[in-house]
């Protein structure tokens, strides 16, 4: 019974840890160069402004602005990639006019986005400058909250696992009360008796942790496969989720976490059993 209960706890812990790792990966991906990124939309990019294409004019203004690390006009193809999730792919181009889009990267802490926005609007009327900073703050907050939830879930799962081990140990002590009293009477120390119990409990908890980790593996692989496009982690050339290549989608940290689960449950089993037995033995002189 104990290994199965511990396996269930380990399974939940694996899910919580996967959530933590996943959110961390997504947040890191979103935040790549985060706070210092801007998107500039230029409506009618090929229209003329001061004898120059409006998009080129906007680029010139950006390149003349100190503190702008890079400004890159998205090509039609890049734009199409960006819009595909919402407007679909396919070569028949949309009939609605698309604005030109410039991805801007600012040197850290240099230019003031508001000032830059007004300069652009003066030079090329109609441009919209969107700072990612606000969104990044909101996403960071969300990611942080999700990570905190994952850690909380992990702590609760660990506490429940410890409680399960303590209850099982107490039941074992009650069932072997007479044998323990005999061994105690023969001069066994608390440590000797606790080690006997903890050794068995540690093994059972480790088996439980192993079962839980193995049960969690397919679920995590499926989740990782679903998350991969968002985290840009789907390896090149893996078209369908089958075979060994699938294993590559699982984030590296999870390959450390999963083998650590049996060790963690074993540690919880050992420490809880030791504590429970030693406290119980205090009733004997």
């Amino acid at each position, binding site marked *: 019974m104990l290994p199965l209960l511990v396996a269930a706890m380990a399974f939940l812990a694996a899910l919580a840890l996967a959530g933590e790792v996943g959110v961390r990966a997504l947040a890191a991906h979103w935040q790549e160069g985060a706070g210092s990124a801007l998107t500039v939309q230029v409506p009618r990019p090929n229209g003329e402004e001061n004898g120059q294409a409006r998009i080129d004019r906007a680029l010139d203004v950006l390149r003349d602005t100190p503190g702008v690390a890079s400004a890159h006009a998205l090509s039609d193809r890049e734009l199409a990639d960006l819009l595909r999730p919402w407007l679909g792919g396919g070569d028949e181009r949309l009939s609605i006019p698309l604005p030109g889009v410039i991805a801007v990267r600012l040197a850290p802490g240099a230019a003031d986005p508001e000032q830059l926005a007004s300069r652009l609007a003066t030079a090329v009327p109609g441009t919209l400058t969107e700072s990612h900073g606000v969104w990044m703050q909101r996403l960071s907050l969300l990611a942080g909250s999700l990570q905190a939830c994952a850690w909380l879930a992990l702590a609760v799962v660990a506490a429940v696992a410890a409680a399960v081990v303590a209850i099982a140990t107490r039941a074992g002590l009650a069932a072997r009360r007479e044998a323990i009293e005999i061994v105690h*009477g023969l*001069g066994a120390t608390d440590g000797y008796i606790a080690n006997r119990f903890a050794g068995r409990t540690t093994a059972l908890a480790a088996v439980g942790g192993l079962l839980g980790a193995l049960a969690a593996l397919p679920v995590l692989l499926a989740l990782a496969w679903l998350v991969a496009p968002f985290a840009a982690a789907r390896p090149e050339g893996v078209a369908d989720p089958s075979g060994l290549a699938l294993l590559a989608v699982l984030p590296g940290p999870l390959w450390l976490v999963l083998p650590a689960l049996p060790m963690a449950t074993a540690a919880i089993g050992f420490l809880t059993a030791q504590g429970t037995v030693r406290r119980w033995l*205090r009733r004997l002189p």
Partner: protein
Amino acid sequence: MVQLESVGLQYHPAGADRPGPEVLHDVSFAVPRGGFRWLLGPSGAGKSSLLRLLHLAVRPTSGRLTVMGTEVAHAERRALPALRRRIGMVFQEFRLLPHLSAYDNVALPLRIAGRPEGQIRADVTAMLHWVGLEKAGETRPAELSGGEQQRVAIARAVVNRPDLLLADEPTGNLDDTQAERLMVLLAELNRLGTTVIVATHNDTLVARHPGAALRLDSGRLFARD
């Protein structure tokens, strides 16, 4: 070896906020190293409680109990296991571990003391031979007769060469021949220097093996002779 000065004992029943009645009252005596004592008295006189005190299974509630130089009432809890390992105890109901073979039951005190397996094998084999059970090593207690179980219990009590051997009605489950054989074993241990205290109400046995006696009645010590 053992010294009691005005020792009293009350049990604290589990869950009760007041201690139970006093099962031993104002008991004083001393047994020197290598001594032998019968512990006599009717059932309920407190013989078993006195042996439990001497075996450090309970601590006295009053008075002063000194066992092998350690004052028991105030000794640190962690000091007691080492002391218990120097005391052998034979219970009336044997108290063998049912899931262990006779060999492993006898080996238990040595394993608890952390002796090397090689020495354990030699000692346990010799001990089983001494009690006439050299062929019963792999047998579990349930498959042994009462007398054989008693001999396993005695082998377990003395395998560690205790300085103090306590026996509570050790002949209660034995016929006369086996009881006689047990007394010979105890006398031999005593001759080899072990302090021995035997609680019994088997008067024939005491008559055949006269020795100094402690007489208990209603928790009080009536005679030391």
